[in-house]
């Protein structure tokens, strides 16, 4: 048996992320004792309509979040308990609604920092409605083997260690949350475990007092003794002592009272819970509470550490008197194990998971990203530049100083080519239409293809093939290309020619061949090809795509990385154009009619639909 919460308890949690976390912990308990999910609904307006994923063991349940209490109760009429997890400034309203809701019998509030007046009003309201209002600042309520409300009891392992999967004979009452868990552990270690444990919270004016719960425990035949943890301040412990002394009680009371240290502290120095604020030696002091309880017949050790012995003693006495029948211990091996997460199992090496993707270039699992193993900050510190990072991420090796100078020049030379070319123009049209940067830049980016900037890869690929398969046989190469590919990628330009050379090409060729020691078989081959093609037609020159492609092949970059240099470089330019248009607050543009040849049919009537 139990008090307050049992197998029929169904709860709504009012509050956000803390409430969801509590529901997850509660579902672990539901799984342990094989009961249906306790939490049926959440109420949290900012997330109304969402479903929260709650695992009951390995079973995934979805619990709905409602915008207010009424619809949640309408859809889940079995709900009889509300747990308040919402912030202090909204706590009063939430608890008030729950108290006034007809189906709800028990309201437990974990929220801390509720103004005293609000707590007093809630207690008064609950009394008037004949409801139990537990808290504020309560960690929750645990009924062993029956129901867990809140995170009381801690992690799954602890639920087993404290024997919470089945009822014992001890009730637990505390103000503190941590000590409720400690007391449950002591009852499991030194006795046979608990029936129910209730944390009433450490505020000055809790909604429910010790006496209310002592009365309930007295009426619960399975509870034979109660462990009560009180503290300095207020009068709840004295009232408990009065209750105990008032008539013959069936249950035994064991109590620990905190705050005796105040006797020796400097005047006025107080600490602990909000409620632990009064009394040095007079009424409300820890000493007076201990004395009152001892006089009333409770067993009160002088320190918390003494509780173990006291519980053991009472347990032995209850066994001896036959009030408690010894029961065989449940073999913990028969209790369910919480299914571990994939990560946990992997850590233990008990499972093999086929990876979904594989990476060979970078790793961000440490304190900072590492590129091919090198920490980014260390690369910066040692004077490496963006060109070295490109080489690391695209080719997985650090280039030499000469090589990185070439890479840098390729990017610099290709960064932009004015507003008129397809890529930049695409970005500009998008910018003028008010499109955001990433989309406008990708509008320009979509232009990159066989006719615009996208020939680098193929140029590199075929010139490299030429070096290998047609050494010293340019005509052979050209005829193979004509038969199998078509125009040679990297050869030819719309406006540039032998007479009007492309400065970028001549600069790069000169730099690589005359100012570095790079071995350039591809570039040499391409220049030989140019000699033949320009003899046929003046503008069939080695263009910038072809030049870059050859140099990058000579630098040993992977074939399919080559277009990346153009994509990367032009991104710089396209971003520039987007910023430029935005700085000028450019207006929407459209083509003028006179720039369009309307080669369409003249206006004519629409025939009737057949």
């Amino acid at each position, binding site marked *: 048996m139990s008090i307050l919460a049992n197998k029929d308890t169904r709860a709504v949690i009012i509050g956000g992320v803390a409430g969801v*976390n509590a529901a997850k*912990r509660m579902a672990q308990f539901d799984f342990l004792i094989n009961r249906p999910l306790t939490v049926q609904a959440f109420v949290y307006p900012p997330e109304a309509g969402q479903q929260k994923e709650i695992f009951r063991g390995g079973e995934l349940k979805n619990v709905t979040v409602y915008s207010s209490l009424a619809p949640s109760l309408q859809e889940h009429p079995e709900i009889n308990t509300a747990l308040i997890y919402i912030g*202090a*400034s909204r706590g009063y309203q939430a608890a008030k609604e729950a108290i006034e809701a007809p189906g709800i019998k028990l309201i437990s509030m974990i929220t801390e*920092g*509720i*103004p*005293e*007046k*609000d707590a*007093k*009003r809630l*207690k*008064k309201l609950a009394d008037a409605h004949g409801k139990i209002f537990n808290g504020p600042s309560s*960690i929750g309520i645990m009924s062993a083997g029956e129901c867990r409300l809140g*995170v*009381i*009891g*801690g*992690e799954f392992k602890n639920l087993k*260690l404290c024997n919470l999967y089945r009822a014992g004979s001890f009730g637990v009452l*505390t*103000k*503190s*949350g*941590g*000590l409720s*868990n*400690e007391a449950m*552990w002591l009852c499991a*270690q030194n006795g046979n475990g608990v029936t129910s444990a209730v944390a009433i919270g*450490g505020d*000055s004016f809790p909604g429910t007092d010790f006496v209310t719960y002592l009365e309930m425990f007295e009426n619960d035949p399975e509870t034979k003794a109660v462990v009560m*943890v009180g*503290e*300095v301040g207020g009068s709840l412990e004295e009232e408990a002592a009065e209750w105990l002394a008032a008539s013959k009680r069936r249950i035994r009371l064991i109590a*620990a009272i*905190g*705050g*005796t*240290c105040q*006797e*020796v*502290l*400097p*005047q*006025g*120095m107080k*600490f*602990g*819970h*909000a409620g*632990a*604020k009064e009394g040095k030696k007079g009424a409300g002091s*820890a000493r007076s509470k201990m004395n009152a309880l001892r006089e009333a017949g409770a067993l009160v050790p*002088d*320190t*918390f*550490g003494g*509780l173990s012995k006291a519980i053991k003693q009472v347990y032995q006495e209850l066994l001896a008197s036959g009030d408690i029948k010894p029961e065989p211990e449940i073999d913990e091996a028969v209790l369910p194990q919480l299914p571990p997460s994939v990560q946990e199992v992997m850590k233990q090496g008990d499972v093999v998971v086929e990876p979904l993707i594989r990476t060979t270039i970078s790793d961000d699992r440490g304190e900072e990203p590492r590129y091919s193993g090198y920490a980014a900050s260390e690369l910066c510190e040692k004077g490496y530049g963006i060109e070295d990072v490109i080489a690391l991420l695209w080719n997985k090796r650090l280039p030499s100083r000469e090589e990185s100078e070439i890479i840098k020049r390729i990017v610099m030379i290709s960064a932009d080519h004015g507003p008129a070319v397809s890529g930049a123009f695409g970005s500009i049209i998008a910018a003028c239409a008010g499109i955001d940067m990433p989309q406008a830049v990708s509008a320009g980016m979509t232009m990159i293809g066989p006719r615009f900037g996208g020939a680098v890869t193929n140029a590199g690929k075929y010139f490299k093939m030429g070096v290998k398969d047609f050494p010293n046989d340019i005509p052979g190469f050209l005829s193979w290309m004509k038969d199998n590919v078509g125009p040679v990628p990297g050869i030819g330009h719309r406006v540039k020619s032998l007479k009007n050379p492309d400065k970028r090409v001549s600069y790069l060729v000169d730099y690589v061949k005359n100012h570095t020691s790079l071995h350039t078989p591809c570039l040499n081959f391409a220049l030989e090809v140019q000699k033949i093609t320009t003899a046929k037609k003046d503008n069939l020159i080695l263009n910038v795509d072809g030049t870059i492609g050859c140099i990058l092949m000579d630098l040993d970059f992977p074939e399919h990385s080559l277009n990346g240099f153009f994509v990367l470089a032009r991104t710089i330019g396209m971003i520039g154009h987007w910023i430029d248009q935005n700085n000028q607050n450019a207006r929407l543009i459209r083509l003028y009619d006179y720039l369009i040849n309307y080669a369409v049919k003249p206006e004519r009537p629409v025939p009737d639909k057949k």
Partner: protein
Amino acid sequence: MAKILEGPAMKLFNKWGIPVPNYVVIMDPNRLSQLGEANKWLRESKLVVKAHEAIGGRWKLGLVKIGLNLDEAIEASKEMIGTKIGTAEVRQVIIAEMLEHDEEYYFSIIGNKDGSELLLSTKGGVDIEDNWHTVKRLFIPLDETPSVESLTEVALEAGFEGEVAERVGKIASRLILCFDNEDAQSIEINPLVIRKSDMRFAALDAVMNVDWDARFRHADWDFKPVSEIGRPYTEAEQQIMDIDSRIKGSVKFVEVPGGEVALLTAGGGASVFYADAVVARGGTIANYAEYSGDPADWAVEALTETICKLPNIKHIIVGGAIANFTDVRATFSGIINGFRDSKSKGYLENVKIWVRRGGPNEAQGLAAIRKLQEEGFDIHVYDRSMPMTDIVDLALKS
């Protein structure tokens, strides 16, 4: 519980129509002479000058001067401002009009679980303790407001007479309004004085506690509560309070000078039991500390470093119950870092560390802190099977 200084209390009284004497709060004594030019009462009344700080026993410390004229008040302010009492420094003084009066009354109101209780006596002043039997009490149920007539009745029963009783009834009614609307926990006015020649009342001295948790609904609370520990906060305490106000969960720290056993304990309930255990076993605590609600590791680290700096400590008790949701591994990583850092700075010489804890990830947390043994720490680590406060017994017997 948040005690507020006289200045802010007077301001709240004024707001609710409770008569107060003229007063000013200053930080610069020169400002007072300028105020004197602007305010007739400063030039013509007898004045009282008080240190406007949370310092107990101000009278005995010479931080209250009475019966002064303006020049004397300026002089007294100059003397007081900058005075250091222990760790506290007088930064502000309050100068109030000393109302010539005929009688001193006692007024107070204090909250209880069902509402509040109003206390009245015609025999206020310094001897109120001796005249406690004259105090008339009225219980006021939650959210009920007694009428001025019924309060006048109570005043008559308390021994107030005629017009005075009527005025006392009115003031009591306003006191109740102030108490209710300002989320007060207690207000004590002693004395409330009367000058019968012009029937002028004034609350000459008052202590007010407000519910700091209710500050979210008081836009005009421009004050900060004064220390709850009977003395001003130290710098280290202030630092931990600042951290506390910024984090999820909480960290708390109070110094107790002269103690030998430092507490680095978890949870509002358990921490007090650890302090009790030290005292019960004849030890002396060097501080009170508490971390709870799964605070960030860096906050626990800061608390640890603060505790390691406490002078002349012999033991540190890293204690706690079996936590419900505070992650032991995470909070202990803060403690471990704090210990390491403190040791590298020369602290923790000859200090023994005693650990007992349980809760989420307890095995990993305890294993990690146990490793400090290998780094030369004198540390003794126990798990949940050790009764909670028994590490204190072990420490004090070692």
